[in-house]
């Protein structure tokens, strides 16, 4: 296990978007094989799945042939764990906006530490390394979590803590449990940090509904031009308001008094926490040195060619406490190129293109109701 830890540390020490694709492929493949071997020994069911895979992972020549797990399997309760109960430090849960049951992933100390390092490595490539005042557009409770459990919002907020010199949360819950903006606190923060480099984070729909809309309604501009605004969580909950990304960026920039280029959308999922995908200046997403993205053709499950779209698989060497290394997601993405994005980042460049529709049995077979039989 120490050998695996060392290899993961090595992957985390590489500049995240600097490796030529072939070199990265080789290092990921070797490390992921080691991780699979270890995981199979720790979890009989997972070992059975890997053993049932049509290709023996030990002889696989590309990451795309390794056994990946559909992300829906992480909804299991109790969660699938590769570590003993006493080693679990934290359980993360997804926001479960598209299904009733959330995903649950268990983190031991090494995995938790690596997750933080992963996010830091990626984010500093986009916003630099300095610590700065950190404005969290969420509640203190969301940020902290409770009982060793942390939701998707809390995990994202905490992931950016290493960039914070001071953290301020500006949302509260009212007596009905609704999120409410604390304008006084927000304006105090803004007044105190005029001209200073600051960091803002919020879930996409929360930023829109609980910051942009109330400030626009009161015609307030915070005059924080030296800001980097990161947001994640997806656009699904803004669908009914038909908010375009460009409108979102423009209006957010308007209330902060900054350029729309200061707004960075990133994709991240609790199931693969530690690997996030911010938009580069070209509007594309990239995979870091310690992970990858494979976009699979639904007809063959082979990786698609550049210019095509398919189902997204996210790969990460970071987790060793749960099966999050090779996850087939329920998202669809379009691959622009396998290398050579004008932004200079190496490896795949892609854009998300929505969700895989919910699977429904066609015609016959959708048999929820048990039929009585009269003899």
């Amino acid at each position, binding site marked *: 296990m120490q050998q695996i830890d060392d290899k993961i540390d090595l992957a985390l020490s590489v500049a995240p978007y600097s490796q030529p694709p072939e070199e990265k492929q080789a290092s990921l493949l070797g490390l992921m094989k080691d991780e699979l071997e270890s995981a199979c020994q720790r979890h009989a069911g997972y070992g*059975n799945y890997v053993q049932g895979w049509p290709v023996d992972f030990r002889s696989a020549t590309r990451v795309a042939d390794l056994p990946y797990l559909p992300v*829906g399997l992480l909804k299991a309760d109790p969660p699938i764990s590769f570590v003993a109960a006493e080693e679990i430090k934290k359980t993360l849960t997804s926001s479960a906006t598209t299904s009733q049951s959330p995903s649950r992933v268990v983190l031991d100390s090494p995995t938790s530490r690596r997750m933080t390092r992963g996010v830091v490595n990626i984010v500093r490539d986009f916003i630099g390394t300095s610590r700065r005042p950190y404005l969290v557009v969420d509640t203190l409770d969301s940020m902290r979590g409770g009982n060793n459990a942390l939701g998707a919002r809390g995990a994202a907020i905490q992931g950016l803590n290493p960039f914070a010199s001071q953290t301020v949360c500006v949302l509260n819950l009212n007596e009905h449990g609704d999120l409410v903006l604390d304008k006084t606190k927000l304006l105090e923060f803004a007044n105190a940090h005029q001209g200073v480099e600051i960091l803002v984070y919020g879930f996409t729909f929360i930023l829109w509904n609980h910051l942009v809309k109330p400030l626009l309604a009161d015609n307030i501009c915070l005059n924080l031009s030296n800001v980097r605004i990161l947001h994640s969580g997806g656009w699904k909950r803004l669908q009914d308001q038909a908010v375009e990304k460009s409108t979102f960026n423009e209006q957010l920039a308007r209330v902060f008094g900054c350029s729309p280029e200061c707004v960075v959308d990133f994709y991240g999922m609790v199931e693969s926490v530690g690997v996030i995908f911010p938009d580069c200046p070209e509007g594309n997403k990239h995979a870091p040195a310690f992970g990858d993205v494979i976009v699979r053709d*639904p*007809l063959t499950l082979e990786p698609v060619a550049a210019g095509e779209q398919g189902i997204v698989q996210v790969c990460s060497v970071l987790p060793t406490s749960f099966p999050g290394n090779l996850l087939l997601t329920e998202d669809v993405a379009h691959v622009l190129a396998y290398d050579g994005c004008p932004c200079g980042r190496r490896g795949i460049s892609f854009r998300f293109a929505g969700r895989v529709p919910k699977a429904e049995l066609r*015609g016959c077979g959708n048999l929820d109701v048990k*039929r009585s039989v009269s003899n």
Partner: protein
Amino acid sequence: MSTPSLTGLVQPVQSPAEISAAAAELRQAIATDPLSPSDVMTIFESWAKELDARELDEIPGIVFLRMWLRRGTLEPIIARELGAGALSGGWTESGRARLRAFPLGVVGHWPAANVEIQPILSMTCALLGGNAALVRVPRGLVDLTHALMERLTQSDPSERLTRRIFMASFDHNRRDLHEAMAKSVDGAMIWGGQDAVLEVRSLPFPHWTRIATFGPRMSVAALDATAWSNPDDQKTWCLRLARDVWQFDQQACSSPQIVFLERDPQQSAASFMTHLQQAFENENRAHPRRTIASALTSAICQARAAWLLKDSSHAAVFPLGPDWTLLFGSGSELPQPVQGKTLFVLEVDNLHEAISKLDGNVQTLGLGMADAEKENKLAMLAGQRGIDRIVKLGRMHTFVPPWDGVDLIRPMVRMVRHVSSAE
């Protein structure tokens, strides 16, 4: 309003008035030119020949449709359902009375979208009873149904049959058009999943409309130990099973989702599984999938992983792609069907135990039994458990009435009884 023309071809419909007008024309066609089952079969025969065309070979179920339309297939069905005299439009003696089938009138068809030839099959049942047919063609089936109906127009130059067919295409959500259809029909044949069937049945049909519902069902297969463990027969049973899975992409009510193997204490099922894998591989080579919905791919991947993770004693065989999947385990609990050529193979100590757990949701039991006495007992039990069709493996989709426990032609006719006044 444009008056629809009764060409037999699929036409887009925009307004309820178009449907009402089409129904009125259909009614006129029946009244002015009655057709006997024999007249209909003559046209069907030549239609079957027209369908024997290379460009139609890719349509799932086309081979079956050609067979279905032959006089040799249909005559015994009509004789059994309507009486021997019905073939030529005559009366059939029944004790001291005589019986004759008369059409209900206009029969509406709401086929499901999961079986490509279903709009045609449903329609033929009504036409054989002398009815006219008003068919709503699901959006995904418009092109291929149109192609099949073009061949009918070529086989029916006098338009005796096509004049009594109106095939409408309109959006599933157009409640007003569904209602117009319902109000216009004397009989209805409704096929599909639970939601679709309930929705159609809630339409404002006239009180006299005869409704035949073919709702959601699933099917299973079973093999006794002597049958599957016989080395001479293993390959053949596996081939039959694979064919039943492949037809209609395992989405039909009659598609097997689970096969129960009676445990053989003398040998493991490993060699059977090897043959089954080969049969699936061969079938996949012969009939590869051309497209797939991303949702189905996800569901297949999910099923594979869930099965193997759930229990270390579970096994599975599948290729890297989503083409097919065999999930092997034991026990008689019914797993949730996945479709997409995903077959659960479950070893059980006793087939009776497995069949006794089925309910009326299971339509067809495909059997491979070496022991006839055991088969008869199993068939009795299956009937008691609500299963409507018990057939040999390899013939699970053979469209022969009764289907879902009911006849296919008789529900859409009136059986008129004549007792002579001279008696």
